[in-house]
């Protein structure tokens, strides 16, 4: 269709347009401006406040900046700072609202869905977190962080195979060798009964930073396979780094299952000498005596262990040949 510019109706329309420009208030020109100076200046203040960790000021400026009708580009940055501030100083639900809104407004910016995923992971909404981390991975946003987040969410959802893949990828993409992620990866492999692979990962971690946790994890893999002598030896190595009670009682039990009863007894006795109310050591001592057919002697220790936590107490009561009174009476 051709427009006849000489036609009367077109001339009339053009005249009306020019007239409207003349009577327009100045504020209407805002949308035609390339930049919003006032909003930009507030954003700069906000950046400074954020860098100094002054979230109170960030929140104040947040109220102020929106009165200036900031551009979409500025708003995107504002949501970023304000979201992080709500994450730091709460309430978390406000951070969630901001990130939900922002991820809808700026679907290409994976920052918002990544932060949202982190909050969901921390608060136990793993099924909501996982797809958001996957989106961040696809967009190559903080890939290592997103991979680790996806691994943690998958692990919590019971998808251990998937979790192990994410951990592996995160570690291969990471320039730094993050010890805590290596430990999480090893634990995930142990949970999924992939013991040999777990040992290979643990050895890598040990080579980077030798410390007690590694041989303790190795001991768990051997114990799970029923290789109690090896488990005991690995736990002895962990005790060499850190002689804490958890490792010493673990070694005692591994020795018991391996049939090294003297070593097991020595562990139980040492722990009981250090703390006469060490209920696990008492339980171990009771097991040792019971299996040596000294049931009445064993009962003394099961009686003591019956004052431990719920399960320790129940197990001790199962083993005791005498009916034990309830905990209130027994543990006066």
């Amino acid at each position, binding site marked *: 269709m051709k427009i006849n510019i000489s036609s009367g109706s077109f001339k009339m329309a053009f005249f009306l347009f020019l007239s409207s420009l003349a009577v327009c208030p100045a504020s209407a020109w805002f949308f035609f401006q390339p930049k919003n100076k006032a909003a930009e200046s507030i954003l700069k203040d906000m950046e400074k406040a954020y860098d100094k960790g002054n979230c109170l000021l960030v929140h104040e400026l947040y109220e102020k900046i929106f009165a200036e009708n900031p551009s979409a580009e500025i708003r995107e940055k504002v949501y970023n700072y304000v979201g992080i501030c709500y994450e730091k100083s709460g309430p978390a639900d406000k951070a969630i*609202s901001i990130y939900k809104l922002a991820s809808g407004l700026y679907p290409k910016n994976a920052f918002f869905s990544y932060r949202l995923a982190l909050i969901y992971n921390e608060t136990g909404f793993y099924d909501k977190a996982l797809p958001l981390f996957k989106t961040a991975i696809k967009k190559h946003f903080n890939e290592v962080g997103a991979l680790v987040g996806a691994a943690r969410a998958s692990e919590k959802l019971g*998808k251990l195979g998937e979790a192990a893949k994410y951990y592996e990828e995160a570690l291969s993409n990471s320039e730094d060798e993050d010890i805590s992620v290596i430990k999480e990866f090893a634990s995930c492999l142990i949970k999924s*009964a992939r013991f040999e692979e777990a040992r290979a990962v643990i050895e890598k971690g040990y080579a980077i930073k030798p410390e007690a946790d590694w041989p303790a994890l190795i001991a768990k893999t051997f114990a799970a396979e029923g290789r*109690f002598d090896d488990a005991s030896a690995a736990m002895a190595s962990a005790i060499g780094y850190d002689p804490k009670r958890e490792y010493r009682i673990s070694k005692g039990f591994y020795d018991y299952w391996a049939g090294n009863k003297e070593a097991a007894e020595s562990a139980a006795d040492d722990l009981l000498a250090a703390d006469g109310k060490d209920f696990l050591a008492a339980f171990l001592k009771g097991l040792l005596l019971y299996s040596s057919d000294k049931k009445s002697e064993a009962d003394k220790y099961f009686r003591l262990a019956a004052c431990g936590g719920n399960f*320790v107490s129940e197990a001790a009561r199962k083993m005791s040949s005498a009916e034990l009174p309830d905990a209130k009476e027994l543990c006066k």
Partner: protein
Amino acid sequence: MKTITVKSMSFFLAIALIVFTIPQSWASGQSPVNGSQAGDDELLTELLWPGISNAPVGKRPSVGVALAGGGARAFTHTGFIQAMQYASFPIDYVAGTSMGSIIGAYYSAGKPIDGLWQLGGKLVKLGIKKDFLNVKLLPLVFKNKMMPANNIKRIIGEMFGSLNIEDLDKPFACVAVDVRTGEKIVFRSGPVAIAVRASANFPGFFEPLQYNQRYLIDGGVVENIPVDVVRAMGANWIIASVDNVISDSMPENVLSVLMQVIDVRGRMLAEESVKKADFVVDPPVGGISTIAFEKSIEAAEAGLLQTMKDMPAMKRAYILKAIKMRTEAE
């Protein structure tokens, strides 16, 4: 509407934050403890478990699993078995009913667990649903003739070939019913394919399976959770993996009404069976209908998650059953 969603979400998050800050010992009902007791329950479980689970039967009570029927919902057993493998939980006897028998036989045959995860999709691909969807009421009424479950027969044949129950890696049994006498028929030997096909032979529409002068239909009619069966096999401690919910979807046709009726009946029977089990894993799979085989992964994931959640309690229950026997065997 959007505001309500955000608000309710925030409420749940706030609750979650509070729950996450409560010490674990409180959550487990244990009184707050100090010194050497903190974390001892978890540690003792961890230290007793390998000594018991690695022992041969005889030094520990034997463990049987009873896998309930439930069509597509029964794929929850895939997740259950996966979680049991992760935890190195011993399984010495397997019994199944209906779809539980197919999954149980597959696992007992020593086939890889990955295959179980793919099984649902495979069944859909091979057309298991067609047998159900092909059921039309008018031919049934006017021809007065049952439908042959041809696709199901072919699929089960492909899965188990000429394998016999006595050749499986683990002792296995499954339940069917002789429709003429109402007798419960327990298969403990003979061709796997026939046994599981009989056990999963949906009553009312499909022809009864004729075998050894018996007319066999789905065992879910008499024992949907075969706890008694696995106990009779010799299991001392029994875990029932159930999908013990009636689908919450509205029945759309005659077939789905009938299935729902059978679900209701199965649930009534299940109430008695679960009382006899030593531990029950019951994941929330009510949103999955009996023939929604395309949702088998969803059911399996629900089973996996529920079993992993239940695992610490399951391990403790078994340890308490086994500890004396294991210590006496030392």
